[in-house]
């Protein structure tokens, strides 16, 4: 990617003449070219077929939504809900990659048989769900204890260790 960006001009003088918008457009063009060459023949193929790209990007979006919720909300229960969103993004990713590479990974790593399927990703998702259950129980208990102490569940009031 960096090499592609550096190829936009032959000499240093030409590079200096490119404006910011032109450089962005060139970089975007190279990115799209790369995508067409490697990830599909048309942009619509992203919407008309399923492989790991779609699951990965959707789970990225969900993870960033959860990050936004954890960072921006001031209610403790809302923060826990956003945390569940992030955990589910991880679960999507693990099961999707297990679906796509479970057979190949197993054949490469452990055995010479043709069609042996590992379910390591699914087992790890089960453990993630277990940890999410523990986190929900302890988190709600902490929120209730905090409410008994400070009569509030707003995290702005949790400032005893601020300074």
């Amino acid at each position, binding site marked *: 990617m960096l090499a592609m960006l550096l190829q936009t001009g032959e000499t240093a003088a030409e590079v200096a003449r490119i404006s910011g918008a032109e450089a962005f457009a060139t970089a975007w063009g190279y*990115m799209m070219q790369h*995508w067409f060459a*490697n990830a599909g023949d048309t942009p619509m193929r992203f*919407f*008309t*077929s*399923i492989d*790991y*790209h*779609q699951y*990965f*990007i*959707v789970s990225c*979006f*969900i*993870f*960033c*939504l*959860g*990050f*936004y*919720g954890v*960072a*921006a*909300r*001031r*209610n403790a*229960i809302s923060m*826990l*809900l956003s945390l569940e*969103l992030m955990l589910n993004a991880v679960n999507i990713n693990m*099961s999707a990659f297990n*679906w*796509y590479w479970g*057979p*190949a990974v197993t054949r490469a790593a452990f055995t010479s048989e043709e*069609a042996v*399927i590992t*379910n*390591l990703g*699914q*087992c790890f*998702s*089960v*453990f993630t769900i*277990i*940890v999410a*259950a*523990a*986190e*929900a*129980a*302890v988190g*709600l*208990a*902490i*929120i*209730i204890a905090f*409410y008994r102490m400070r*009569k509030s569940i707003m995290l702005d009031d949790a400032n005893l260790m601020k300074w």
Partner: protein
Amino acid sequence: MATPLQIFFSYLLVAGLLVGISSLIMLALARFRPHRRLLATLAVLGFTAFVWSMATLTQPGYRLLVCYFWLFTAAVIGGGVGCVTIRNVFHAALMLILSLLGVAGYFILVNAEFLAMVQVIIYIGGIMVLFLFGIMVSQNIIGTQLKQNAPQSPWAAICAGVLFMVMFFTGLFMTLKPALTVTPDVLGNNTGSVGWSLMATYALPFEVASVLLLMAMLGAIILVRKD
């Protein structure tokens, strides 16, 4: 091959799911003006219908799979956006349940039926109901018209956007070696294989996880106990 009747009924099923999702989106946008609400719902429906028709036209082999994928994506993303934007915490939890249902659909699409059932029974039926009870217990202290976003929410949005752009381009240009093609008869019994793995290969992590759950239960009881 699916018969025309089966295709017709699956279209009917998807139409019903779309109506449900759009009504939930309208509920999520309830604080906007009615015509804006209708416009947003129509936009989401139009986008989904466009993707649906594209998938149907160009990929006859697994068109239903692709269409279900985008339907579940609408549920997951709509529920997630609702979960982090709605002020009423109870409605936010309901939106999170919609998102988790979409994730259960993903699990079915990726041949993880056991995980889908665990998602519905334990995640939605256990954890989310625990959350809903916690919200209802503290409903009088939350309030529905409370301002939910902290002053740093624009900065949080910028950070999340940058993080998403980094991961988005990583995912877009991720070209890894192709997988083996697996026929469904090789897959066998998913629940049985996961159970075998949990009880034989990953028995020690499984026991550690059960101890963790026990510790969480004891800790929760001790934390909320009145002295």
